[in-house]
């Protein structure tokens, strides 16, 4: 299982803060997961469109599309941060 988390502007647009995906070998990178989410169409296609800046963390560490995802990982998507 993969835990997906969404924060801030993304969470509001997608109308969900989290979901789980069954782990499959073809979801073994961040890029594969993004493709799956994008393919849902509608607001998912908009949020993950290529011209949108979406940051991703795997197990609470910033990473990128090529990062490997394994069963049990936490994968979070969010916009550029604005704290401080």
């Amino acid at each position, binding site marked *: 299982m993969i835990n997906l*988390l969404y*924060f*801030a*502007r993304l969470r509001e647009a997608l109308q969900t803060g989290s979901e789980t995906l069954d782990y499959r070998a073809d979801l073994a990178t961040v890029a594969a997961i993004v493709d799956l989410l994008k393919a849902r169409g509608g607001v998912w296609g908009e949020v993950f469109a290529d011209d949108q800046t979406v940051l991703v*963390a795997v197990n*609470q*560490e*910033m990473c990128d599309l090529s990062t490997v995802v394994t069963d049990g990982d936490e994968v*979070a998507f*969010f*916009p*550029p*941060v*604005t*704290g*401080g």
Partner: protein
Amino acid sequence: MNQIKIQTEPFDLAAIQEELRRDNPAIGAVVTFLGQMRDINEGDRVSTMTLEHYPGMTEKALQAIVDEAEARWQLMGIRVVHRVGPLHPLDPIVLVTVASAHRGEAFQACEFVIDYLKTRAPFWKKEQTAEGERWVDARHSDDAAERRWQR
């Protein structure tokens, strides 16, 4: 020795600085950054701001920033406190305070921590204005501030 806190309640600026410096007579300099909520942003009056964060990752990201500061400079303690939840103009948002034997290192480390926090710690601000709610956009000036420290 270092301490990171994420909290909804207000923090006591004086108590944190006192606790950091009080018992260590090897400390010669304490530099403190306080970020407070402004009532105007991008020209619009802001009545309330809500700070969202990513629990767990926030603490890890701040710890990594503090560890990096420790590695780069000779320091004698760092405190980082960041509020989340609803905030109003004049509310303190974030405190970074750094102690060192000498001022140069304390200044550099304090600015480094807040610059990195601004670009690497998962916090997001949402503003309530007369025209409604809006998410605050990341600032290019913050990216530029972070790049100064890159090695």
